[in-house]
């Protein structure tokens, strides 16, 4: 039996109960969205009892579980409550899920990012459920005057066999809320899980397919105005002046004014990212009227820093790769000597462009700021940090700022940077009215906060037997130094050198699904494929040999190597078996990568349709420990694979004198139905290890598998993303 201390959240639990008054009647929204059937009316709860901040139980045994973290499509709104329900020991059909508001007193890390919600929430969620169950048992023990350890639970029913007593959770809920929070609680054994590890459908499914207002852009409040922004047309430009007279007179327009989002002296958080300091706000009665006004508005901009073009970025990254670092990020052995002694040396350079996140729901936020308080609501992955910035920008104490998260129409890292929430608050304060800030697609795509442009050079040395004896990696990125020096193949090769460089750019950048890995994996795994071929070895066997080395006789301090070679090899072996791997004539590629604490190996089959790859099948083996909800876990894997294939093949953001060339989906190509893989099959390593990340890990390696399969089909290696671009077609 696993016992966990509840101390970490004890204060929070108690505070949560105190806040709610313990056992008080709470309003409920259960089934509010659709007409209840007669049976449902019969079972409608009359009272709800707060057990702790994570959950409340109704008199009839229904349970409402708060999902603490922001939902961006990674499906934590189903998975996190499943973990609580497991330890609470209830029937999942009796559970309703609600999105929690930002509440740092009760919840920890209300953030969607780094594929960490489940991994970092695992213990506190289990504890929340187990603690509530413990308190229900304590209440029953007191009511029945029997020892607590003789009471058992099963799917929401408390029983005491000896006295033949039983009750559902609802009957004990009121008393349970008043019970002492235990010092420590027992958690279930993995083998006893009934909910975790089973397929559970998305809790918002019905609302999604019937078009319910779930998203930030759907917010409609009494007296609400629409606000839009105009930002500088190019990176390196800033606001100068404008003529607002004629535009202010346009139908529906309430006001047009410049806003200082981040005035001098404001304390910014990392989450403010590439938020633009000064913008123009257009406020009106409706979105279409604001869009028309934006079009008519003439704003003068001036140069703030030197404008950059894509050709400048390319040249500057190349220049960085031709320098030598004073202090390498990691150095094992002597690569210089090893390359001199090598039978074969292979050197290749890979590149990738800036990418926009392009969430389908453009950036937006609702704000109602008065002198008394600030009420904000919308899609943000980092509400806690947004609140901190607002304290400084609005000069208002934290307690007076409320933030509610809405379901997000995609995140991919874009909504880690909540500058749009700050913008909404500043506009609302100026207007003294509730406003909904709406970005047009063009505003969204040209704002910045991009995946950085990258370039990386790999050099490998092989001895006469085709063993890898030297590895040199040099990477550079825009505002990002790219290389993970302690990841594979560090630790598998005697002579190893890693160098990294940053290109300072005024094109703003940010985390984009699987930061750095989204480029490195494709480059590294393509390079390994080429090296294995030069060594005359099967690409899977070649990798497994390297992992053998890392398992049996690792190079350098094994503590420093940021991966577990056994788990790495494990997913490769699993995908080898499941795909019936042969390195024969088929257009088939393999790839494996580790990130976000999870291991993924993929095999991909394709057919080229003219110049374009059509993926026929992907086999994907994943080791992310315990899989909470296999149905949606597979969905994440499929999405990551399609996302990776799409962006590596088709997408890019380019610039001419600081101006983004791509502004909408007519010029920025995203993968579509006809280009998507025909079939994806996923497999999990069943090892009972605590769960790790899954929102990101399937994306990075697929780019390598794709490039390797394309090589098999066309005889050409693919070094520069996007693989299929105008440039590439013209040679």
């Amino acid at each position, binding site marked *: 039996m696993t016992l966990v201390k509840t101390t970490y959240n004890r204060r929070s639990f108690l505070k949560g109960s105190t806040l709610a008054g313990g056992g008080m009647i709470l309003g409920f929204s259960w089934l509010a969205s*659709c007409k209840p059937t007669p049976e449902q009316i019969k079972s409608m709860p009359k009272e709800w009892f707060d057990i702790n901040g994570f959950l409340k139980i109704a008199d009839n045994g229904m349970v409402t579980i708060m999902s603490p973290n922001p939902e961006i499509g990674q499906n934590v709104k189903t998975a996190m409550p499943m973990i609580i329900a497991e330890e609470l020991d209830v029937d999942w059909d009796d559970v309703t899920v609600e999105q929690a508001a930002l509440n740092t007193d009760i919840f920890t890390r209300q953030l969607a990012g780094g594929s960490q919600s489940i991994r970092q929430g695992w213990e506190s969620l289990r504890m929340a459920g187990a603690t509530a169950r413990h308190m229900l048992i304590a209440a029953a023990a007191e009511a029945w005057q029997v020892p607590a350890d003789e009471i058992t639970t099963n799917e929401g029913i408390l029983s005491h066999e000896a006295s033949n007593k039983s009750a559902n959770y609802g009957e004990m809920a009121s008393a349970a809320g008043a019970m002492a929070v235990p010092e420590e609680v027992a958690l279930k054994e993995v083998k006893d899980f009934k909910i975790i590890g089973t397929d559970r459908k*998305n809790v918002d499914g019905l609302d999604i397919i019937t078009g319910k207002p779930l998203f930030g852009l759907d917010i409609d409040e009494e007296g609400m105005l629409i606000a839009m922004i105009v930002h500088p047309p190019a990176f390196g430009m800033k606001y100068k002046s404008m003529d607002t007279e004629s535009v202010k007179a346009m139908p529906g327009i309430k006001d047009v004014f410049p806003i200082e989002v981040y005035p001098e002296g404001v304390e910014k958080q990392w989450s403010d990212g590439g938020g633009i300091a000064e913008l123009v706000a257009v406020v009106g009665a*409706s979105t279409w009227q604001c869009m028309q006004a934006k079009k008519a508005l003439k704003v003068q901009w001036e140069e703030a820093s030197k404008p950059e073009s894509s050709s400048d970025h390319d040249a500057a990254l190349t220049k960085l790769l031709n320098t030598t670092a004073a202090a390498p990020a990691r150095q094992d052995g002597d690569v210089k000597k090893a390359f001199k002694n090598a039978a074969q040396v292979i050197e290749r350079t890979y590149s990738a462009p800036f990418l926009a996140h*392009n969430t389908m729901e*453009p950036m937006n936020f609702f704000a109602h700021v008065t002198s008394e308080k600030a009420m904000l609501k919308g899609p943000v992955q980092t509400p806690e940090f947004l609140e901190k910035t607002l304290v400084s920008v609005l000069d208002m104490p934290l307690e007076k700022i409320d933030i509610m998260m809405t379901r997000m129409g*995609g995140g991919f890292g874009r909504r880690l940077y909540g500058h749009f929430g700050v913008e909404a608050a500043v506009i609302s304060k100026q207007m003294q009215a509730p406003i909904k800030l709406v970005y047009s*697609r063009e505003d969204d795509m040209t704002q910045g906060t991009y995946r950085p442009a990258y370039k990386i050079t790999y050099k490998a040395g092989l001895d006469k037997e085709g063993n890898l004896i030297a590895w040199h990696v040099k990477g550079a990125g825009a505002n990002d130094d790219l290389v993970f020096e302690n990841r594979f193949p560090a630790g598998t090769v005697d002579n190893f050198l890693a160098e990294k460089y940053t290109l300072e750019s005024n094109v703003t950048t940010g985390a984009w699904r699987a930061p750095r890995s989204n480029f490195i994996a494709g480059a590294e795994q393509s390079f390994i494929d080429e090296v294995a071929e030069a060594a005359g070895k099967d690409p899977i066997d070649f990798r497994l040999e390297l992992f053998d080395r890392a398992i049996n006789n690792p190079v350098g301090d094994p503590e420093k190597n940021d991966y577990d070679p056994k788990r790495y090899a494990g997913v490769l072996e699993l995908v080898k078996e499941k795909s019936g791997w042969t390195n024969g004539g088929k257009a088939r590629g393999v790839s494996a990568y580790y990130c976000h604490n999870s291991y993924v190996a993929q095999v991909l089959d394709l057919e080229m349709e003219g110049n374009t790859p059509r993926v026929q099948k992907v086999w994907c083996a994943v080791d992310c420990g315990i899989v909470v909800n296999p*149905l949606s876990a597979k969905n994440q894997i499929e999405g990551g*694979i*399609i996302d990776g294939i799409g962006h590596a093949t088709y997408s890019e953001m380019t610039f001419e004198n600081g101006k983004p060339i791509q502004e909408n989906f007519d010029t920025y190509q995203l993968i579509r139905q006809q280009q998507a893989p025909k079939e994806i099959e996923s497999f999990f390593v069943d090892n009972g290890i605590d769960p790790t990340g899954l929102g990101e890990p399937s994306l990075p390696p697929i780019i390598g598998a794709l490039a390797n399969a394309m090589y098999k089909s066309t005889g050409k290696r693919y070094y520069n993303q996007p693989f299929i671009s105008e440039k590439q077609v013209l040679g």
Partner: protein
Amino acid sequence: MANYTLNINGVQQEIDVDPSTPMLWVLRDHIKLVGTKYGCGIAQCGACTIHLGDDAVRSCQLTVSSVGEKPITTIEGLSENGDHPVQKAWLEEDVYQCGYCQAGQIMNASAFLKSNSNPTEAEIETAMNGNICRCGTYTRIKKAIMRAATSENA
């Protein structure tokens, strides 16, 4: 500004807006039916797909003045309780991730199945190519459409 009487989901709606206003914004800002989504505003992503009569159209390109008396159906009016065969198939396949594009996908798929009740995989791919899903749920979307087609033919 001008007055229009529109037939939306079987209900007559009176509105007073500029004739150039796209139906997307009429629905979202004026009628308060927000199931129809804004994605690009230039008919590239399909998030705003509605039915005009039996046809799937991009509501971001359909001005209010051009609607006339043709009935409009939005995701909210596709079925009473989310039980249209396409919606049911979406639930069965647990298609969505973020869910934002799915109303447009469903509206496009349901119009398509009306015109082709027994489609091949390739026909589905062609019909659905105008609807972007940034989360990459394409394989599930295709499966759901095949499921809906089968259930309708059953």
